[in-house]
């Protein structure tokens, strides 16, 4: 089942303690890492924790998550596919 990108953005903001930003200000297709939101390697690890905590998805190898972490949309798609039913 597809999850709302709005909900996912809220969870990202909360998990990474981003300040002065609302879900509406994050573009679905903007890069999460490097440019765009400018997240870094520690954030990637926190997102791995988020995936397990909120969606029950366990990522063993950070490389597995890399393509999924490209944008909010790719992450939402990943969750929809991998989430235990």
């Amino acid at each position, binding site marked *: 089942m597809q999850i709302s990108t709005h909900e996912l953005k809220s969870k990202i903001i909360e998990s990474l303690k981003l300040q002065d930003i609302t879900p509406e200000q994050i573009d679905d297709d903007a890069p999460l890492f490097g440019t765009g939101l400018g997240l870094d*390697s520690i954030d990637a690890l926190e997102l791995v924790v988020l995936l397990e905590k909120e969606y029950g998805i366990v990522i063993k190898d950070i490389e597995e998550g890399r393509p999924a972490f490209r944008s909010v949309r790719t992450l939402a798609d990943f969750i929809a596919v991998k989430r235990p039913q």
Partner: protein
Amino acid sequence: MREPEVVIAGCGVISAVGCGVGPLRTALQNNASGLRASEKFSAPRFLSNIVGPAPRNPDDDNPAWFLAAEALQQARANAGRALATIPAEKTGLILSTTKANIEALERISAGRPCSETARRHLRADLLAADLAAAHGARGPVQTVSTACVSGLVAISQAAKTIQRGDADAVLVVGVDCLSEFVVAGFTALKALDPQGCRPFDQDRSGLSPGEAGAAVVLVRADLCAQPAIKVRAFGGSNDANHLTGPSRDGSGLAQAIRVALSAAKLNPSEIDFVHAHGTGTGYNDAMESLALKTVFGEACPPVSGAKGMLGHTLGAAGVIETICCVLAMENNFLPGTPRLSHAAEGTPPGLVREPRPAARLKNVLKLNTGFGGLNGALILSHD
């Protein structure tokens, strides 16, 4: 460094390769590794159970005290003749540690027995004060905590203390213990190699935690009758890049090396051996290789690292690895790099795999880097 000169009059150590300087020297000469699988860290919540444990009681509620005190006792005995002439009021102590007696936090949180002293030594400054009191140091006391560069900073601080006349001798002790806290933390950062660390190896994939107590006694050179290794210079810098990842181009570490060389009035070509930080993580070893290339160009001196032998001993690393350098200089050999199989592309061409005899090592460069972008370079010299 400024006059007066400062020398290392004695050493003490307890680590994954045993208790005492003798066993450490033997391990270095045999390229041994003290890393092993530990039951304590075999649960699935830990990314690796390969660690470097020191010979101690696993049920000790104050391992930080035990390891530090053991190292100090040995070092003071080894520096006996020099120390005997120096009053307690002119003897300082500097502690280097990242987590002090973190064991106490684990016990208290789990509702397990924990003595008041063990709890007290959660606070590194109190651990330092008590160690000073127990080891005849009534001079200045400092507690240095600069991540994995702590040991080198502590040694540098000790030299400064002596040079400005606040003390004639300083006991420098570095300690950190194996703990669930640290293994869980590096697991969360996915920074452990499940197979055990392999510094500078093409297949390296993380560090291995280790524990140690290591101590060096620094004294004013004119108070040390025997020939001794000089603490010649120290250079520090910050990458100002990222909290847990080093600056990719190694420029911060290169800067620290240059500052040390300049303070020592040495050219890069006068360095006979480099003892690397070499944690075994992808980023660190690559960055260090780059920094060495930047400073030394194609003429890099022999390089090796000890973390495949001892694990990453955090606050103790700078001290115990300095002792490795002292042993190399005193015994005219180049230590190897335990657990190295195939050197990664870009590693210094002079990377020493197996120990070998060396002509006199006159000037040795010891490097460490730490979380927070910290870099440190210490130069030791023979006369």
